[in-house]
């Protein structure tokens, strides 16, 4: 398939007209199919250096000091064939006082046996703001193994928000490993929203280390499972500086024969730090269910709506017209 054909197929999977997006000169784009860089469009202050490797790409994304990129950078990583391996090695640097958001679509609509690996190193400079939405769109049969690994350094007074979303198509297997370190007065917000079915397997291992005074962090995992899907969530939050504040929040709705496990680990190494955690796993809340049924929804419709809420609507990061939203902790 030609590059333009691949590009069209990728965008079609996410319901976007490529020429429509390409017409927006103020929206930066990076488009990758397997190991081919199909397109890069930059805006002032954004630098991208991408190299094609045997099974993927290596890329460095730099937002230069003080640059404010108003519209989210649109990134598309995907594979149209049903089989293969895609390895993305990413280095992201947001220089001091810069501001940017990335919406990454990871698209595997025909997957039968695909492995998608991501190794990312992120550095968010002093006073910078960075938001990243990773939205996965898979086929109906699973067949994808997704292995994202990220290490994030959040500088003094910087803000970091990441939102992993897999709510369309089957998960297959997913194994998230993310570690974030927040310096003084930084804010880190890490969210995963995943819907699993069939024999899907979900593993989330997220760690936030609040090492600077007044650093704040929230780890949120919202997961809905049905059939015989399984999920295990290890969220670790370590606060080791005065006035550091953190919260771990895990909610999992389990239906049919699905199995969910949550292991929140909170560690406080400073007498003036404070960390809380909350985990709720179980079937759909009966009061929520009966409230919606008393409005005329049948049980299935009510369950769907409750899960839709838990997994959230479109992330605010994704709105093409939006600038980076303020992170609330």
């Amino acid at each position, binding site marked *: 398939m030609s590059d333009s054909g691949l590009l069209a197929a990728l965008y079609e999977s996410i319901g976007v007209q490529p020429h429509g997006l390409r017409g927006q000169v103020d929206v930066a784009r990076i488009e990758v199919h397997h190991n081919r860089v199909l397109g890069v469009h930059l805006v002032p202050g954004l630098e991208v250096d991408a190299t094609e490797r045997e099974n993927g790409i290596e890329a460095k994304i730099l937002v230069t000091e003080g640059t404010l990129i108003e519209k989210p950078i649109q990134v598309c990583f995907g594979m149209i064939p049903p089989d293969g391996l895609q390895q993305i090695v990413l280095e992201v640097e947001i220089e001091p006082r810069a501001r940017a958001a990335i919406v990454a679509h990871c698209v595997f609509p025909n997957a039968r046996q695909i492995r998608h690996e991501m190794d990312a190193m992120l550095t968010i400079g002093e006073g910078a703001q960075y938001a990243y939405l990773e939205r996965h769109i898979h086929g109906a049969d699973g067949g994808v193994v997704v292995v994202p690994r990220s290490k994030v350094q959040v500088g003094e007074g910087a803000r970091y928000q990441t939102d992993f979303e897999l709510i369309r198509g089957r998960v297959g297997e997913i194994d998230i490993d993310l570690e974030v370190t927040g310096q003084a007065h930084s804010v880190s917000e890490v969210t995963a929203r995943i819907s699993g079915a069939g024999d899907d397997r979900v593993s989330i291992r997220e760690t936030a280390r609040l090492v600077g005074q007044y650093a704040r962090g929230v780890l949120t995992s*919202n997961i809905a499972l049905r059939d015989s899907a399984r999920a295990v969530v290890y969220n670790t939050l370590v606060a080791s500086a005065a006035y550091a504040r953190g919260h771990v929040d895990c*909610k999992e709705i389990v239906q049919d024969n699905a199995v969910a496990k949550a292991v929140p680990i909170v560690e406080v190494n400073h007498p003036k730090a404070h960390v809380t955690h909350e985990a709720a796993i179980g079937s759909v*809340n*009966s*009061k*929520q269910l*009966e*409230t*919606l*049924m*008393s*409005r*005329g*929804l*049948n*049980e299935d*419709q*009510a369950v769907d*709506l*409750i899960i*839709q*809420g*838990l*997994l*959230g*609507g479109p992330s605010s990061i994704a709105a093409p017209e939006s600038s980076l939203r303020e992170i609330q902790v």
Partner: protein
Amino acid sequence: MNILQLKDVTLDLGGKRILNHLSLDVREGHIHALIGPNGAGKSTTANVIMGLSGYNDFEGDVLFQGESLRGLSVDQRARRGITLAWQEPARFEGLSVRAFIRAAAKDKSDDKIREALDQVGLEPGKYIDRAVDKTLSGGERKRVELASILAMEPKLVLMDEPDSGIDVEALDRIFQALKIFKQKQATVLAITHSLAVLRQAEHALLLCCGRMVDKGSVDRIAYYFEKKCVPCDHLDPVVRLAEDANVG
């Protein structure tokens, strides 16, 4: 004409009799208050009418528009036109006010959703995209719930303690909503132990120890409730009535 009738309903929960041969009639298009002290069986009555889980194993019958509700699920009752506003509305993680109201609404347009929010005094632009979760106060959630019921356009609204946990302004909005229900010829059965709520009704029903003690004009029942029920320490109504007769 009666839209709802409870006929000799008896319900035991946890080995205790909660409703005791309760019979009552609710007139179509009117606002009724079911008043009584804590533990009288008021909320249980609403739960039985709505058919909530755990409240279906009772003796007697509940008729809506002349037909028994026995065997009907909560959603089937809702589709016949019955709904319930909870004393403490549920929270829905991540679910937007728009989606919550739209789920119930007869007319699912954005205009209708905004109109419903406006009717309960919540500025649509400020609330429509918020989540129905812990970021809303109890009073705000109560008003959002009421907006969803207004948009649903039911025939019978069961309101369980509409004034609990809300401020004066919110209460005023809830009273205005009662007027809207009345204008739309919906029937309201407000469960309460508040005289302020009772005063909004056209008919009053007095419940104690799972039995109907009295019914009639709001003024008379309000007087009785204030003078006899408020100081009463759950004295069995039969004994109370006998005492009253002796005094008389």
